[in-house]
């Protein structure tokens, strides 16, 4: 077993894990953050994308034990006070999903695109940068629309959570 400490969605976590544990397993099985999905487990589909130190990575292809001291943001870390993140809102608004399986990875990738390229994204850039995310339902058209609208709505700031999200008021 090995010990690893990192910050996940602004919260300090420590785990005692088998070194083989992938980041996505650590998130889903140990921390019960099941928003991050496993589509292929072969580094192709992007359903498992999360941010590590502000950068999108495939959580099925990173060892949790290698992230000592890192800061991880998952799809659960985007909403604040029960308010959807602008990119989540845009996916809802523009019908950017059908079954929803690819959606967490799509949204984390989309926020990463905005972090890297800013708020004014044309279709070509979006399609090119979603290269590592596969959707079997939508045909991508509405995803691309959602990302463009979400990027605009994000209005300049990086949207990785610095603070832990608080519970929504019932």
């Amino acid at each position, binding site marked *: 077993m*090995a010990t690893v400490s990192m910050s996940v969605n602004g919260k300090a976590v420590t785990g005692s894990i*088998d*070194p*083989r544990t*992938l980041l996505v397993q650590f998130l889903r099985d140990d921390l019960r953050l099941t928003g991050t999905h496993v589509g292929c*487990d*072969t*580094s*192709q589909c*992007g359903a498992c*994308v999360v941010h*590590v130190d502000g*950068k*999108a*990575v*495939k959580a099925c*292809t*990173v*060892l949790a*034990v*290698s992230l*000592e001291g890192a800061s991880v943001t998952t799809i659960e870390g985007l909403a604040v006070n029960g308010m959807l993140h602008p990119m989540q809102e845009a996916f809802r608004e523009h019908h950017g999903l059908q079954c929803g399986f690819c959606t967490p990875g799509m949204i984390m*990738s989309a926020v*990463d*695109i905005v972090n*890297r390229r800013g708020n004014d994204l044309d279709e070509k850039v979006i399609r090119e*940068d979603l*290269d*590592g*995310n596969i959707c079997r339902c939508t045909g991508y058209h509405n995803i691309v629309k959602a990302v463009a609208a979400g990027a605009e709505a994000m209005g300049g700031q990086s949207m990785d959570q610095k603070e832990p999200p608080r519970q929504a008021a019932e």
Partner: protein
Amino acid sequence: MYAFTYHRPGSARQAAGLLAKKEDAKILAGGHTLLPTMKQRLASPTALIDLGACGDLKGIVRKGRTVVIGAMSTHAEVAESAIVQEAIPGLAYLASHIGDPHVRHRGTIGGSVANNDPAADYPAACLALGATIVTNQRKIEADAFFTGLYETALEEGEIITRVVFPVVSKAGYAKFRNPASRYALVGVFVAKRGSDIRVAVTGAGEGGVFRWPEAEAALKARFAPKSLDGLKASAEGINADMHADADYRAHLIGVMTKQAVAQATGK
């Protein structure tokens, strides 16, 4: 994945020490080749030495007429480096077209060069630019480094610490991507340093990356896309698989070489 012990040294020197001590140990860089291979149980090291905390393997600097890139520099870091963009824009372009954004955030130049996948991008740049691969033990010229499919001149226990690229007067890269994997179906890197012209082809060779002497000779007369008119790459020794047959790949070599020269000359 089979079980292994995990080690996280703080320097290349410590990593080399661990690598020498542990039986069946392997270096872990970005993990974007090694971890998928381990999941498939095609590799089963009993110890992983993670270079992630080796600060001395990071960083990109300009040193005289060269650009020195630390082995643990990610593809994204190379693509976005102002130093690389200014000195060898073709190399920054190449790095920006490896895989997808997520792969580029983890995969490293050291891992890519050490792995020498026959369809990987960096080997073409190393060979065409005449790079030097520096290890914890010695310096190896690119010409002598890539020795075959997934094979390199690296000895057991040797760690790549950095790759040194000469700054050339002109360089360009063109790749016809496999649309699913993004690896090169055919990729061609061209470089001109004084009268020395090099054309390196990846993705196509049965033995991995190779130089195309006929194109180099043709470009010597004049370094322009037109100089390649009528020149055909031979399909001898060219890869054939479910993605493309040898004739098609050979044809693509000509097309990609032209595009790479056009990029290098700004045409």
